């Protein structure tokens, strides 16, 4: 009888302790553990505002969704090998998710597949890869952005005209898509002759030189589309130098102080800007949702915006064009 009593008592006590631990554990588990996300961007060079703003968005989201975020990146946008090794390093740390802005459309495919197989959720931001290893792609719809640039160019041109496209690097998905969008729009107008795409191997100086070359070669009404910031600025410099801003219409992508000056001066007619803050923010948000097992859409368009001299100081656009307060 007494023995049975003691068993009963110790059983009850043990049960209560177990329940207590369980409650504590569940609570602790659901509240304490922040998800780990590693973000690998194209360049850590802090003179490139685009990535700095994107990182801002990343941090803002990390704060809001309580994630532990590490941001890594290759030194330059062209260093594919370094980026591959960064992804490998990230995988060794076994984060819950990796957010990647791919430097190369093809060469990052194998490592991305590997990441997916290891169970880490992969989110692509800004620049995609030639694979569907990613849970979701958070980027500007570059084809659409290209179309917008094409339309802006079309509005600037009257009569017969030639349009040259300057691309930064050959195998970047974003550039391929933008070019596609531009050609899609401008190709429909018979008065516009689309010239070959010029590649400048990732250098503004090359773009400047290439633009000069184009400007000298084609003396009629001309449109130039720079597919990103350095190509646009390079081309702008060439136009400024040759004082051809009346004859040559420049449409660019992205924004920087140099581009703003070009816009103010009227050298550049319009620039199509992306929303890097949104990209950063949404990539983390999507990663968190994917890790928590929610359904995420395969492609998230963060949108693009055509900025001209007329709307550049609008309240909504200021923050996009001049992202860094106090700098």
């Amino acid at each position, binding site marked *: 009888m007494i023995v049975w009593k003691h068993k009963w*008592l110790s059983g009850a*006590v043990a049960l209560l302790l177990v329940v207590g631990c369980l409650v504590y554990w569940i609570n602790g588990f659901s509240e304490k553990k922040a998800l780990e996300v590693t973000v690998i961007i194209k360049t850590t060079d802090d003179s490139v505002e685009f990535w700095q703003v994107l990182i801002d968005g990343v941090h803002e989201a990390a704060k809001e969704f309580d994630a532990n975020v590490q941001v890594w990146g290759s030194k330059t946008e062209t260093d594919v090998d370094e980026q591959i090794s960064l992804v490998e390093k990230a995988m060794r740390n076994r984060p819950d998710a990796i957010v990647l802005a791919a430097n190369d459309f093809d060469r990052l495919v194998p490592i991305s597949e590997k990441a997916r197989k290891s169970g880490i959720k992969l989110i692509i931001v800004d620049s995609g890869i030639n694979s569907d290893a990613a849970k979701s792609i958070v980027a500007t719809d570059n084809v659409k952005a290209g179309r917008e640039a094409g339309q802006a160019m079309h509005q600037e041109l009257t009569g017969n005209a030639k349009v040259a496209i300057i691309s930064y690097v050959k195998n970047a998905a974003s550039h391929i898509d933008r070019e596609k969008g531009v050609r899609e729009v401008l190709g429909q107008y018979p008065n516009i002759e689309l010239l070959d795409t010029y590649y400048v191997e990732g250098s503004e100086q090359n773009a400047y030189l290439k633009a000069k070359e184009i400007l000298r070669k084609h003396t009629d009404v001309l449109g130039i589309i720079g597919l990103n910031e350095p190509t646009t600025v390079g081309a702008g410099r060439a136009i400024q130098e040759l004082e051809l801003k009346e004859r040559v219409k420049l449409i660019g992508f992205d924004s920087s*102080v140099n581009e703003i000056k070009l816009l103010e001066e009227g050298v550049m007619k319009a620039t199509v800007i992306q929303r890097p803050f*949104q990209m950063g923010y949404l990539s983390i948000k999507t990663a968190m949702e994917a890790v928590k097992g929610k359904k995420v859409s395969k492609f998230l368009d963060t949108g693009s915006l055509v900025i001209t001299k007329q709307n550049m100081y609008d309240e909504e656009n*200021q923050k996009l*064009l001049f992202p860094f307060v106090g700098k």
Partner: protein
Amino acid sequence: MFSRLRSLQTNMVLASVFLILMTILIMSFTSYYLTKDAVQSQAQSYTTELVKQVNNNIKSYVNGMKYMSDLVAANHSVQDYLSATSFKSLQDEKDHKEAISDLLESMLFSRTDIASANVFGYGGQFVSGRKELELNPFIDRSTLSWYKNAQEAGGKNVISPSHVQPVFKDRYPWVVSLSRELFSRDGTRKLGVFLVDLNFSVMNDMFKDIRLGQRGYLFIIDSGGKIVYHPQQQLIYSHLKSEMIDKVLEIESGTFVSDEGSDSRMYTVQDSDFGWKIVGVSYVSELVGNQNEVRLSYVVLGLICIVIAIVISFFLSQRVSQPIKRLQDYMKEVEKGNFDIHVPVPKAIEIGRLARAFNIMVGKIKELMSQVVHDQEQKRKSEINALQAQINPHFLYNTLDSIVWMAESNKSKDVVLMTSALAKLFRSSISKGEELVSIRTEIEHITNYLMIQKMRYKNKLDYRIEIDDSVRDYRTIKVILQPIVENAIYHGIKMKHGPGLIRITSEETESDIYIVIEDDGKGMDEEKLSTLLLPSPNPKEGRGVGVRNVHERLQLYFGTQYGLTYKSALGEGTTVYIRIPKSHRPTEDEK
């Protein structure tokens, strides 16, 4: 566990656990909600205080700008410079400009928070307190909002939201502008616009570090609902997020909570006197998030309390139930028939009383048991005595001797009569071994006996039996008359000169029957009478043994109020009353 058969201890443990559980639950809930309210109102007052502080800080900046604006607007050299249509010389113009520039510069001295202070004349004049600044040739300032708003306000200070100031060459600072249209000394002519820019980084740095909880933040809107500062401005412009700006604009100052389920936000609004509204936003779930820890600790605390409660109630109940259990074990012993036990009396009063009462009870039972044993023994002894009395060998010898004597005298008729009476006497006394016989049988028995005695004593003895028929069917223990009659013959009549008479009659009351045996023999003195029915110190002594035996048997069988009563006086004979109850009436078939 919930069967009805539970030990007292289990019941006590369960009851106390339940009680404690309820107490803890109620207390936890109450204090949880009390602390929840307390935390919420604390957070609210904290936010309000913080927002007020921020407001004061901004106000001090704005007041500084206003002060500058007032100085410049009232400054004569500024008015002169802007209103002059021509100057005596270029040098004169330059001197004027220099004076204003110096004034502005002195105001900006050691003020890193002010980006610039400038005067724009409607005649195209431009003077800046920061001499390195040049105008941006590509910007038409009349399109900029701070310029337009100043013109519309007509001499009042206008504060812009935060914006990029593109008016200077190669510079795109984020600033908050205070602008004011300047008038001539007589107030009739509009001369230009004064602009002072506050580096927005000053405010940004101030707001950036303000955190309301984990995710809470602070934002500022102007009176038109435009965002002056918001940490997530971009998200709002792209509609990834929304603030309840309409509601913020509606209320002067105060607090409200948005209804967004788990993402509900608490807005604390403070109206500044220059048209901005400073809003602190904190997440309600976060306040509750802290609450989760509180709740968790309540749960853990509660569990610990329950564990302690179980242990305590277990030991407590054991202290109560243990003595009871011990008592139970003793009772089991008693059940087995062991009465030679004595329960130690525990200290607890109730259980002690119980144990004492138990001890007394066991003692009583023991006493009764021995009483019963003694009584039984006594009964057996009496019966044996009765049997002995029946077959009194002297009586038999004398009777047989009489028969022999009668046979020798050829009184064969008498021999037959006596022998048959003797035979009847024995038959009726042996009966069927039953304890009770009817009075009728008992009378038959005594009739036979008296018949034999009459034949022996002839005229010396005479007897009369007058028993009512109504009593004959009642039952009595057997052989109660013979010892008395025998006594009456041997000690009464035989000792007397002349013939004696024995008379047996009956009397009846409501509940009892009296059989009365009277003789007119020698009788007894008081002393003998008083000792007759008392237990004799020497039971072997012949006299009175049979009578005492009858008395004892009657008392044993029917109770102490029954038995024999003697009345006697020396020389006058003796009367014996046998009292038996009416309760023993034979059933029909026994008749």
